[in-house]
């Protein structure tokens, strides 16, 4: 198939009630979606708002909806996603308020991270004191492997934007926050396990997940938030049945 010489890019402009603007961008051999957005902003319309930082898939700030699917734009080659006639449709991340153009407001995402108690609370060191000794955590232990499996999340929000339950239930904590909670539940050095399990239980938490695995399918880091949520459900199931909570 001959590559089209020109990309026909529809870009979301304005807030929630905005509209698509059309731009023509020269097609190149090696080009990421972020390159296309940068070209528009530098050469065609300097008022375009979007977000990026590292350009190499480390910071998680460049995620957008590309042809209907949440992706890191810096790690997405145009040729992998472009339509046959060179069409590209760019929107801000779904399931979040729109600030302007391609910039979504991630505050609800990070607020829920807090609500899920997604931060480490050292067991041996109340008030942030430095513990007397190093904690010994065998890397091969089951708990540590569960924690390691989800630890590399960079908070990009791709999974959150891909989850239908987030769209249906404004309170739902979402895959990233629950994944983070599961890594901490498996951290033997953490002292807030009981409160965290309370925070992730019920309709706003893991029990609303339908295990449809869009989060797992779309996570650019190849993490498995769906499995982490299943872990939380399993833990809460037995804790509830055996009266451990």
């Amino acid at each position, binding site marked *: 198939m001959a590559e089209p010489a020109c990309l026909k890019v529809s870009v979301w402009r304005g807030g929630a009630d905005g509209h698509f603007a059309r731009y023509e961008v020269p097609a190149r051999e090696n080009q990421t979606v972020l390159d296309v957005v940068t070209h528009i902003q530098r050469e065609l319309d300097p008022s375009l708002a979007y977000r990026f930082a590292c350009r190499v898939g480390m910071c998680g700030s460049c995620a957008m909806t590309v042809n209907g699917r949440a992706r890191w734009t810096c790690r997405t080659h145009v040729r992998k996603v472009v339509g046959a006639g060179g069409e590209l449709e760019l929107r801000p991340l779904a*399931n979040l308020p729109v600030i302007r153009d391609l910039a979504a407001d991630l505050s609800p995402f990070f607020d829920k991270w807090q609500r899920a108690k997604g931060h480490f609370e050292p067991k041996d060191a109340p008030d942030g004191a430095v513990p007397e000794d190093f904690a010994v955590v065998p890397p091969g232990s089951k708990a540590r492997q569960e924690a390691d499996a989800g630890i590399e999340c960079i908070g990009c929000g791709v999974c959150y934007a891909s989850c239908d*339950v987030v*769209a*249906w*239930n*404004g*309170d739902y904590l979402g895959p990233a926050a629950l994944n983070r909670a599961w890594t901490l539940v498996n951290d033997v050095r953490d002292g807030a396990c009981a409160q965290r399990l*309370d925070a992730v*239980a*019920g*309709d*706003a*938490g893991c*029990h*609303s997940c339908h295990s449809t695995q869009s989060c797992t399918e779309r996570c650019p880091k190849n993490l498995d938030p769906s499995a982490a949520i299943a872990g939380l*459900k399993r833990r*809460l*199931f037995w804790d*509830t*049945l055996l009266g451990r909570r």
Partner: protein
Amino acid sequence: MSASDRRDTPENPQRRARAQTHLWVAQRLTAMVLGLAVLVHLATILVAVRGGLSAAEILERTRGNGAWLAFYAVFALAAGLHGAIGLRNIAAETIGLRGRGADLAWLAIGLLTAAFGIRAALGLYA
């Protein structure tokens, strides 16, 4: 309707979350019961239809059969609760029906459905 219009307004979030967890646990437990009960039910059907099926034959098997009554009472209770909790989840996600009042109504619907099933079983037992 926007997502924020659909929020629950819990009076005590932790207690609500626990009650919701209990509903979830009840749905999984009843699903396990249903999984077994459906197999027993199918096997019963296969055995029952051998050599034709008549009202007299059915009543002969079911009248005064305590084990049979107990099995279908448990089956009906599990189905009623399981179905109602499932519909509760669907209603919450599609029409935003949430809250304590709705949960109590769903529980009542589940128990009522179960009661109809148990009454039918009683009719064949007595």
